[in-house]
C-alpha cells in the first residue's frame, strides 16, 4: 500500500478552474518535485468544494486546513511552510469577513460548519475521475442493495416513504412519479436525468456532476430498476464542458467495472445510458420540451396528459428527475427512508442545495436541512452583505420565482413556505440583492429573459411577455402611467392561466412578487420618476444628484472645482441648497453612498468638496426680492425646513414671517449640533446672507401657542408652514428616569448650547462619569459634548456597531477622543442616592431573530445584569415632536406618532388647506438635507395651491445666469483613495469646542475633484 503523509485536495470545479486551479496545481507539483517531496504528498483534484468566491481553494490533510485564493507564486512558501516546516501558512487561510478572525480548519469555518452534506457529501473529498475513491465512500453500495435485495415495489416504497420531492423546482414526490411509470406497461421505458440547468444563478447540478458524478449514475440505475427501464439519457447543457467531461469519464469507468451496461454486478440487470448535449434553450428544462428536444426537434412543450409516465420520450413511459434528486437516491436506499426524513420540515424532507450568489460575502454552494431560515443562509453561512450594505431581498427560483424581502429573514425555507411568500424553491438558485438593486429593474431583467426564451407556442406567453416587458421598460425609463401596475397584474394572471408549460405559467412571478413587496418602488418610478436604488439610468443624470433629496447638481460643482471656478461652483450649489456651508459639514451625504467611484476604490468626498467651496469662494451676493404677492405667509420653526421654505417663498415674491421659540434661528443646527462640528458664526452668516437678505422676517423668542396663539397666526396670515421639528427626547421607559441627573439627549444639547458659559465655567456640571444611551447622531453629539466638559463617557447601545444609525465618521471621531462604547447593552433601571443619579443597571443582550428591517433583534441575556456607577445619564434613543401648540379645533390633525396627517394625495398640505407642513414634524427625525427638501416641496406646493385658487399660470423660475459646465474626463482611471480631511489632533480637541475638521487645501480639493467619473456625461 502506498502511503502519503499529506493529501492535498485542490478544487477543480469550474469556479476554481476559472480562478486558476490549473496554474496553481502545476506550480505546486513543480515545487514539491524540486524539494523531493513527491513521495510524501498525494495531490488530488476534486470537484467543486462550494466556496467558489475564494477559489482556488485547497484542503490539506491530515490537518484539515483550507487554503484559499492561492496564486502560483504562493506555492514555494506554501510548500516550505506546510510540508517542510510543518507550519500552517497563515496568510492563505480564511478570514471571517465581519470579525476578521482567521479560521484555519475547514470544519470551523461557518460557511462549511453550518451545512449538512448529503448530496454534496463527497465534494472536495474524492477525485471525481477515480471511481475507486467514490466506491471507498460507498458509491454503488445502494445500487447493489437495490439490485440484489429489493423488489421494484420496495424501492419505490422506500423512496416514497423518504418524502423526497423533485429538486428541479416543482417538488413533485419522486416516489409517486416512479410508481406511475412502474404501473405503466411497456417493454421500453426511459430514465432521464435533467441536467439542463438553465436557471441563471443556479449551478448546483453542475457542481454535483463535477464533484460526484457516480452518485447521479447510481441513482439512475436504481430508478431504472424501480420502473423497469434499460435505457437512460442525461440531458446536459453544452455550457458545462467540465461536467460533461467528468460524466463521460465516470460512465466509462462504471462500464469497465460492470456497474453500468449489461448484467450489472452479475445480477442480470441491464442499464445503459448516454449523454445528450442541450443546445441552449431554457424551455428545454421543461420535461416535455426536453423530451421533444432529445427526439431531435425544436424543444417545445407538449400538452399533458398524457403525462410522461404514460407516454414520454418517443411516446414510451419515462421518468425525468433532476440531478440533485438522483444524487439523493442511493443514500435513501442504503440508509433507509427514516434516516432521510429525520431531517427537514413536515412536508419537505431532507436537505436542499442552494447556489448562493449575488451580493453576499461567501458566494458558493450551500447544502442545508429543509426549514433552515433565510437569515441563517444569508448571514451565518453566507457571511452577510459585502461593503456593509443592507439586505434587500433574496431571489429564489430564477425567472420562475420571486423575491423574499428582509421582513421574512426568519422564514424557514421549504417548498410550502417559499410558495406562500410568492417565490418558488426552483432548482435552488438563491441570489442575494442588496439595497442598491432596483425591484423594477430586476422584474424587467427576468421578463426580458422569459420573453426571449418563450418558445412561441402559446400566444399569451409569446405576446404577453413581450407586452409586459415593454411596460416594465417604460416604467424603468420614466414613461410609466397610473394604472400600469394594475394592468401588469391583470396580464400576469392571463399568462399564468393560459400557458401550456411551466415557463409561461411561472413567467410573471418575478413581476408579481416585486409588486407585492416593492410596490412603492414601482410607484416612485411612475409618479416621481425616481429610482431610489439608482439603477434605472434613464431617470437620472448622475447617481449622486438623483440620491440627494434636494437634487443638488453635484457633478457640475465638482467639475467647476476642477477648473478652479469656485465662485461659479458656489452659485450652482445655491440654486438647490440655501445652506451649503452647513451641509458641507453635517450632511449625511447619501450621495456618496451611491457614488460609482465607490465601486472602484472609494466614493468621492462630496461633502468635503462642498465645504471647500464655501470656505474658499466669496459668497455670491443675494439681493432682496420685492414683495409682489398679496398672500401673507407664516412659517413656524426656524429650522432648515422652515428657513428653506421661507427663502423659496420670498424668492417668489411672498412676504414671509418666521416664528422661532428660541433666541436664534437654525433649529437643531443651532441648538443640537455642537459647535465643534458646525461653528455658530458660519450658520449665522449663512442664514443672514442667504435667507434674511431676501427680505424674510425672523421673529425669535416667539413661541406659537404661548407668545402668540395658534388661532392668531391663523388669522394674521393667509397660509402657514408648520415646521416645528422634533426636539423632545423619547423616554426610555425605565424606573428612575425622572431623577435629577437624567437628561434627554437633545434637551442636554439645547441646555448646553443655550447656557454655554454656565457649563464651561462650571456653574452647571454633568459630573465625572456619564452614560449615554443610544446609537444615533444625537447620542454621539451628547457624548462628545460631555467628554469636552471633562466627563468620562460611556455610550451604551443595545445592538452592534454596524447597526448604529450614527454616521460612521462621527463614531470614529468619538472613539478617537476617548468615548467608550459598549455594544449589546440595554438599561434596566437608574439607581439613586438622595434623589440624585448614582448608577445605571444594565443588561447584556444577544442577537436573536431578525426584525422587519432586516437587523437582528437584541434579546436580554438572563443573569447578565451589571451596574455602572455614573453621575449622569443622557437618554438619546429618539425624538418626537411637541405638538401642544396645535389647537384641537384648528382642523389640523396630529396622529398618534405626534406627526401631522396630510391631505390625501398631497406631500405637504395638512388636513386644513391653509396649513402646510414638512421636516421632522411630518416624517419623524430625519436629516438636514431631508428637511431642506421638505422646505422646497412645501414652498412649491403652497405657491401652486395659491395660483390654482387664483387661476394664475404656474410659476416660472426666473432665468439664472447661465453657467457653462466644463467637461473634462481622464482617459484612464487610476485607483486612488479619497483625500483625507485634515483634523485637529485628538488630545488637543478634547477640551474645547473648536471645529475639529479643518477643511481641504486648494490642491487637495482639485485633486479630489479630478476623481469624479462624470456619470452625468454618460451617453446612451
Amino acid at each position: 500500500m502506498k502511503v502519503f503523509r499529506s493529501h492535498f485536495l485542490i478544487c477543480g470545479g469550474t469556479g476554481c478552474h476559472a480562478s486558476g486551479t490549473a496554474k496553481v496545481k502545476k506550480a505546486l507539483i513543480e515545487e514539491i518535485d524540486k524539494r523531493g517531496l513527491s513521495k510524501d504528498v498525494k495531490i488530488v483534484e476534486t470537484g467543486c468544494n462550494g466556496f467558489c468566491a475564494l477559489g482556488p481553494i485547497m484542503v490539506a490533510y491530515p490537518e484539515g486546513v483550507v487554503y484559499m485564493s492561492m496564486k502560483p507564486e504562493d506555492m514555494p512558501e506554501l510548500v516550505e511552510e506546510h510540508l517542510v516546516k510543518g507550519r500552517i501558512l497563515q496568510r492563505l487561510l480564511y478570514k471571517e469577513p465581519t470579525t476578521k478572525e482567521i479560521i484555519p480548519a475547514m470544519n470551523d469555518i461557518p460557511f462549511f460548519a453550518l451545512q449538512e452534506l448529503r448530496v454534496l457529501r463527497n465534494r472536495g473529498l474524492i477525485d471525481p475521475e477515480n471511481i475507486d475513491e467514490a466506491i471507498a465512500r460507498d458509491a454503488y453500495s445502494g445500487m447493489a442493495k437495490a439490485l440484489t435485495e429489493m423488489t421494484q415495489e420496495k424501492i419505490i416504497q422506500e423512496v416514497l416513504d423518504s418524502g423526497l420531492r423533485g429538486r428541479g423546482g416543482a417538488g413533485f414526490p419522486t416516489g409517486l412519479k416512479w410508481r406511475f411509470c412502474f404501473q405503466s406497461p411497456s417493454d421500453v421505458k426511459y430514465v432521464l436525468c435533467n441536467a439542463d440547468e438553465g436557471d441563471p444563478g443556479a449551478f448546483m447540478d453542475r457542481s454535483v456532476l463535477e464533484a460526484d458524478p457516480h452518485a447521479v449514475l447510481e441513482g439512475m440505475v436504481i430508478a431504472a430498476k424501480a420502473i423497469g427501464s434499460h435505457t437512460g439519457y442525461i440531458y446536459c447543457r453544452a455550457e458545462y464542458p467540465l461536467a460533461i467531461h467528468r460524466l463521460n469519464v465516470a460512465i466509462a469507468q462504471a462500464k469497465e467495472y460492470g456497474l453500468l451496461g449489461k448484467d450489472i454486478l452479475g445480477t442480470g440487470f441491464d442499464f445503459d445510458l448516454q449523454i445528450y448535449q442541450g443546445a441552449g434553450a431554457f424551455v428545454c428544462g421543461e420535461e416535455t420540451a426536453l423530451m421533444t428536444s432529445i427526439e431531435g426537434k425544436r424543444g417545445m412543450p407538449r400538452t399533458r396528459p398524457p403525462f410522461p409516465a404514460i407516454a414520454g420520450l418517443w411516446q414510451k413511459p419515462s421518468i425525468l428527475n433532476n440531478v440533485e434528486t438522483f444524487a439523493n437516491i442511493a443514500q435513501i436506499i442504503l440508509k433507509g427512508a427514516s434516516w432521510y426524513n429525520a431531517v427537514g420540515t413536515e412536508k419537505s424532507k431532507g436537505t436542499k442545495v442552494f447556489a448562493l450568489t449575488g451580493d453576499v460575502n461567501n458566494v458558493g454552494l450551500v447544502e442545508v436541512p429543509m426549514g433552515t431560515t433565510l437569515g441563517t443562509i444569508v448571514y451565518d453561512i453566507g457571511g452577510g452583505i459585502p461593503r456593509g450594505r443592507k439586505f434587500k431581498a433574496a431571489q429564489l427560483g430564477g425567472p420562475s420565482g420571486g423575491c423574499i424581502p428582509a421582513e421574512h429573514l426568519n422564514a424557514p425555507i421549504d417548498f410550502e413556505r417559499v410558495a406562500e411568500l410568492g417565490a418558488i424553491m426552483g432548482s435552488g438558485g438563491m441570489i442575494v440583492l442588496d439595497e442598491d438593486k432596483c425591484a423594477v429593474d430586476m422584474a424587467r431583467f427576468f421578463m426580458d429573459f422569459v420573453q426571449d426564451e418563450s418558445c412561441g407556442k402559446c400566444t399569451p406567453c409569446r405576446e404577453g411577455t413581450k407586452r409586459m416587458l415593454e411596460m416594465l421598460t417604460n416604467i424603468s425609463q420614466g414613461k410609466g402611467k397610473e394604472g400600469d401596475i394594475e394592468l401588469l397584474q391583470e396580464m400576469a394572471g392571463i399568462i399564468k392561466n393560459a400557458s401550456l408549460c411551466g415557463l409561461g405559467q411561472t413567467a410573471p412571478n418575478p413581476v408579481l412578487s416585486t409588486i407585492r413587496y416593492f410596490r412603492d418602488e414601482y410607484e416612485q418610478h411612475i409618479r416621481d420618476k425616481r429610482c431610489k436604488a439608482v439603477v434605472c439610468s434613464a431617470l437620472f443624470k448622475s447617481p449622486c444628484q438623483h440620491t440627494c433629496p434636494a437634487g443638488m447638481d453635484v457633478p457640475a460643482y465638482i467639475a467647476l472645482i476642477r477648473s478652479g471656478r469656485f465662485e461659479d461652483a458656489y452659485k450652482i450649489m445655491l440654486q438647490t441648497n440655501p445652506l451649503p456651508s452647513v451641509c458641507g459639514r453635517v450632511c449625511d451625504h447619501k450621495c456618496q453612498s451611491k457614488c460609482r467611484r465607490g465601486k472602484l476604490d472609494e466614493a468621492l468626498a462630496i461633502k468635503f468638496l462642498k465645504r471647500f467651496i464655501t470656505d474658499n469662494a466669496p459668497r455670491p451676493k443675494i439681493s432682496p426680492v420685492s414683495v409682489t404677492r398679496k398672500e401673507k405667509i407664516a412659517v413656524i420653526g426656524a429650522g432648515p425646513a422652515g428657513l428653506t421654505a421661507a427663502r423659496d417663498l420670498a424668492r417668489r415674491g411672498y412676504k414671509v414671517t418666521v416664528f422661532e421659540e428660541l433666541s436664534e434661528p437654525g433649529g437643531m443646527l443651532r441648538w443640537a449640533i455642537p459647535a465643534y462640528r458646525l461653528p455658530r458664526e458660519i450658520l449665522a452668516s449663512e442664514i443672514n446672507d442667504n435667507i434674511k437678505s431676501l427680505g424674510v422676517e425672523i421673529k425669535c423668542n416667539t413661541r406659537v401657542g404661548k407668545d402668540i396663539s395658534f388661532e392668531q397666526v391663523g388669522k394674521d396670515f393667509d397660509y402657514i408652514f408648520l415646521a416645528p421639528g422634533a426636539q423632545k427626547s423619547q423616554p426610555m421607559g425605565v424606573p428612575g428616569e425622572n431623577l435629577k441627573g437624567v437628561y434627554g439627549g437633545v434637551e442636554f444639547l439645547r441646555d448646553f448650547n443655550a447656557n454655554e458659559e454656565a457649563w464651561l465655567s462650571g456653574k452647571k456640571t454633568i459630573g465625572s462619569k456619564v452614560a449615554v444611551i443610544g446609537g444615533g447622531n444625537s447620542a454621539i453629539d451628547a457624548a462628545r459634548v460631555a467628554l469636552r466638559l471633562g466627563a468620562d463617557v460611556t455610550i451604551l447601545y443595545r445592538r452592534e456597531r454596524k447597526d448604529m444609525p450614527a454616521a460612521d465618521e462621527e463614531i470614529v471621531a468619538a472613539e478617537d477622543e476617548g468615548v467608550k462604547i459598549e455594544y449589546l447593552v440595554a438599561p434596566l433601571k437608574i439607581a439613586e442616592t438622595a434623589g440624585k443619579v448614582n448608577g445605571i443597571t444594565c443588561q447584556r443582550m444577544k442577537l436573536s431573530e431578525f426584525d422587519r428591517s432586516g437587523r437582528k433583534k437584541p434579546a436580554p441575556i438572563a443573569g447578565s445584569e451589571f451596574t455602572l456607577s455614573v453621575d449622569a445619564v443622557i437618554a438619546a434613543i429618539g425624538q418626537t415632536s411637541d405638538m401642544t401648540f396645535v389647537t384641537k379645533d384648528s382642523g389640523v390633525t396630529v396622529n398618534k406618532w405626534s406627526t401631522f396627517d396630510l391631505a390625501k394625495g398631497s406631500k405637504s398640505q395638512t388636513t386644513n388647506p391653509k396649513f402646510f407642513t414638512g421636516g421632522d414634524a411630518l416624517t419623524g427625525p430625519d436629516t438636514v438635507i431631508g428637511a431642506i427638501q421638505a422646505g422646497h416641496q412645501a414652498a412649491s406646493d403652497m405657491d401652486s395651491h395659491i395660483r390654482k385658487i387664483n387661476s394664475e399660470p404656474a410659476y416660472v423660475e426666473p432665468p439664472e445666469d447661465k453657467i457653462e459646465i466644463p467637461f473634462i474626463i481622464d482617459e484612464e482611471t487610476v485607483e486612488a483613495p479619497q483625500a483625507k480631511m485634515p483634523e485637529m489632533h485628538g488630545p488637543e480637541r478634547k477640551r474645547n469646542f473648536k471645529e475639529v475638521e479643518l477643511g481641504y487645501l486648494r490642491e487637495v480639493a482639485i485633486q479630489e475633484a479630478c476623481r469624479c467619473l462624470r456619470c452625468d456625461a454618460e451617453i446612451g
Partner: protein
Amino acid sequence: MAKLTIADLKKIKDKVHSETSLRAGEHRAKVTVHMGTCGVATGARAVMDSLMGAISEANVSDVIVTTSGCAGLCSQEPMVTVELTGQSPIVYGNIDANKMRQIFMRHVMQGEVQTPFAIAKV
C-alpha cells in the same frame, strides 16, 4: 478489467478507504520529523523515508506524519517527536533510519517509549 461483483465492491472500498482515511481526521499517533536545515543536513530525509516505508509495511492508516522546522537543538538532529493520542509527546534525538523503524514498531505501534533515544518529554 473484469466485471465487478458485490464482494469486489467491498474490497475496493476497504483498500481505498485505508489510503484515504487520512482525510477522515482520527489518528492513533502523530510523528513529527524535524526537517530544518540542520535536520536535513544530518539525514532527516532518510529518517522520513524509513518512517513512511514502515507505515506502509505495517499497513496502518491512522498515523499522521508531519514535519517541522528546526527544533533549536541542532546537535541532536535528526530529531523526531512521537505523540500518541492522549499522551505527552516524546522527543527523540540522533535518529537514523534504523532507529526510526524501531521507534515506529515499538513506540507507535506498541506504546513502549524507547528511552535510550529519548531526549525529552515535552
